[in-house]
């Protein structure tokens, strides 16, 4: 078996006295599609922030390709191919849609204006290339978030609830897109509440409840797991 | 040879001076420390308060401290208006940082030039029985022009602190600096609370202005000397902490007084910067406050 692309080892994150993540360990293999689920406030987004470096970790290790990255600033991690999208779309407001992608491409990806156009076309945003983000609809904004993440040429892409608020057909469209991206060699971690999307996409599921990993394995088994059901449905 | 009595006198003078600085910084501790509104123009408003006090004192013979309190409601209303404008133009648009800072800087400049145009660039002073008098105590001299501002300042800070800790509105103001969502859940509009708090912050400028003109004669551009001091004290004290701000004011006052007496008064304005920069660089939480 080859070494995992991403290793999270005994990661703990405390905010003051509150333990947001408690010794979480998980691995993501090269080329894998991992789904990360858990109730609201369970620590999923904190985990993403810790892996991408937006917040410092309290203890534990994060490795990308066996190299420790938990001390690196976020921009170094992005340049190494660890890219995340933001849960609430946060476009660069004064830049056009195309230039939003260009920033990611210049600093983390491989610059070429062809691929900006291709990416926009892939997500159906090609007509909006010269527009400003505030002219986009909510759905287009999500697509921009995804397009910008792709423009950073990720090896490991973490998509944080990119589908919330989308229609049935749009969810399918995005899942299809992520599957194609995965086929092209990108490892993807999907954080999502829409179970239909998670189940269609993931090869493996990890469930986090109250800052702890409670399940990790085959999607069907995880969703049938007693801990997971309890967390989602209550007693 | 350093005379211990001279040092003691300088320290006492510094404590009085620091107490007065706290009055000027109080408005910034509220507006910037708690509401996150970088009101650079506050010291200029303090100077406006000083000129208003001068007007009331020289024309009607009203006691300067009383004049400061009389003007406070007017300053409160002006504060409400200014916050509304700031909110509509910047905060709501999410452009609070760059444009908002430049806005307050512009307001500072307009206020200062406006004072020059309307009242002239001359120094103004007030008269009151305690201004020329002084208390002597165990070899120390406490001049009235420093003692009265010190006492009024401490009283004002104490009252405001009590108001914030005890009253419903006061607690809502404290809450707005921590968590706006929680406040909304309580059925209180954060914007209304912020407006009110900013009005209060502005009202303190009137009183601080009265104290300023008791301490020393005032000309329109004098407010600038206090911008660095007031912000340094708020940052050093820890954003949002009144006691921290007061403590930092006292430390600044004592240091300035020692430097002025023992060395050279022209370095005094630079000392605040000497505090500010290391605080920002190495201890951004200040003495007693949350981390930035």
């Amino acid at each position: 078996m080859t070494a995992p692309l991403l290793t999270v080892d005994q990661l703990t994150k405390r905010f003051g006295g509150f333990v947001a993540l408690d010794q979480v360990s998980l691995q993501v293999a090269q080329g894998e599609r991992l789904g990360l689920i858990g109730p609201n406030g369970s620590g999923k987004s904190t985990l993403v922030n810790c892996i991408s470096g937006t917040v410092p970790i309290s203890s534990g290790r994060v490795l990308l390709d066996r190299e420790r990255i938990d001390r690196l600033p976020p921009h170094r991690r992005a340049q190494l191919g660890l890219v995340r999208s933001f849960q609430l779309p946060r476009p660069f407001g004064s830049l056009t849609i195309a230039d939003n992608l260009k920033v990611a491409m210049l600093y983390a990806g491989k610059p070429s204006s062809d691929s900006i156009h291709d990416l926009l076309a892939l997500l159906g945003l090609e007509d909006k290339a010269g527009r400003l983000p505030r002219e986009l609809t909510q759905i287009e904004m999500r697509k921009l978030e995804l397009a910008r993440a792709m423009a950073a040429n990720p090896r490991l892409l973490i998509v944080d609830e990119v589908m919330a608020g989308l229609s049935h057909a749009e969810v399918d469209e995005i899942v299809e897109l992520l599957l194609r991206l995965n086929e092209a060699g990108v490892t993807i971690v999907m954080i999502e509440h829409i179970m239909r999307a998670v189940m269609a996409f993931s090869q493996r599921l990890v469930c986090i409840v109250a800052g702890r990993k409670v399940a990790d394995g085959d999607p069907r088994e995880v969703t049938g797991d007693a801990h997971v059901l309890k967390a989602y449905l209550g007693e | 040879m350093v005379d211990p009595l001279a040092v003691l006198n300088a320290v006492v003078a510094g404590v009085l001076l620091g107490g007065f600085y706290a009055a000027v910084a109080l408005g910034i501790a509220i507006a910037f420390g708690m509401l996150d509104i970088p009101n650079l123009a506050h010291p200029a408003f303090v100077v406006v308060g000083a000129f208003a006090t001068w007007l009331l004192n020289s024309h009607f013979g009203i006691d300067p401290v009383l004049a400061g309190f009389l003007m406070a409601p007017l300053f409160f209303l002006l504060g409400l208006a200014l916050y509304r404008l700031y909110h509509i133009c910047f905060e709501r648009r999410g452009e609070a940082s760059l444009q908002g800072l430049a806005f307050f800087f512009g307001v500072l400049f307009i206020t200062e030039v406006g004072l020059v145009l309307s009242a002239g660039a001359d120094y103004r002073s007030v008269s009151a029985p305690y201004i020329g008098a002084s208390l002597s105590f165990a070899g120390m001299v406490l001049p009235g022009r420093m003692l009265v501002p010190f006492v009024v300042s401490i009283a004002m800070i104490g009252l405001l602190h009590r108001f914030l800790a005890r009253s419903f509105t006061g607690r809502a103001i404290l809450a707005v600096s921590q968590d706006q969502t929680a406040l909304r859940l309580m059925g209180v509009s954060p914007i209304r609370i912020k407006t009110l708090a900013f009005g209060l912050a502005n009202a303190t400028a009137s009183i601080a202005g009265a104290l300023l003109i008791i301490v020393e004669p005032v000309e329109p551009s004098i407010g600038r000397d206090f911008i660095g001091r007031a912000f340094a004290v708020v940052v050093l004290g820890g954003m949002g902490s009144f006691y921290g701000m007061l403590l930092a004011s006292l430390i600044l006052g004592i240091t300035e007084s020692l430097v002025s007496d023992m060395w050279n008064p022209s370095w005094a304005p630079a000392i605040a910067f000497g505090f500010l920069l290391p605080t920002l660089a190495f201890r951004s939480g200040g003495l007693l406050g949350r981390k930035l």
Partner: protein
Amino acid sequence: MTNLRFGLLGLALIVALWLAGRLVTNEYVFFAGYAVAQYILLATAWNLLGGYAGYVNFGTAAFFALGAYVSVAVNKLFEPPLIVLILVGALASGAVGLAMGYLTLKLRGVFFSIATLALAIVAQAVVTNWEFVGGSSGAYLLRPTAGPWGGSYVEYLFYVMLVMAVGAVVLARCIERSKIGFGLAAIRDDELVGEAYGVPTLRLKLLVTVLSGALMGMAGAPLPFYVAYLDPPSAFNLAYAVNTIAMPLIGGASTWVGPVIGAVLLTAVQETAMVTISSAANLMIVGLLMVLFISLAPNGIMGLLRGVRSRA
């Protein structure tokens, strides 16, 4: 237009103004021209950090006056050619920018701004106590009667300032459209997201803080010769800080054109007001214009023009 073409255009402008200058006999034209060019340089320098990265520097006067006073000091020691003074001024102010940036740029922008405000006060205290350059009583300088290539010295100073101003504008335009420019825009819009997409935010902010400071120092270096008498209150005049912020914001801070338009417009307004009304009223106009523009037209004149064009 490529950067090279734009640079050549700038060069052509300098040559054209130099040729036009042959016809000018009135010294006042060069005095006024120097003031305009100086403000174009200062506003452009401010905008590198303020307009592009969104970090407000209130300490223009400090960087500018530091350049001027270092120039006085070095001139007193060696009397080197003006170009050396300009380089030393750039070095000194750039170094201060580096130190300030290193200490405060990790925090939110507002703290950097407050630190620059305090810097202006401390720098003035330092200069006031620096007896070698005249201290509080100021420094007199003998302005040479003629420039090195004939013509008056003021005329020479004007061309020197013009070259620096055009150079700064060309530099700003290059940066705006480069990888650095996109990185700065990301910092201005959302620093955290920029960082997450690979932008080395701290390094870029430091770079432009140093560059911006150095350009301000360069702008200050010839000042002692221009005014012939320099004292702290005039060198640290708050009007410098207000003008250099007002100009880009009125012109439009996100492009290189903005500061140029703003500088030309505001200097023209002030020169007129100075003659017709009083100098205090003059400052009032700048303050009011600035507050009006940032409240009502946050993207300045360029933003208004763009709005008109997109509606048409």
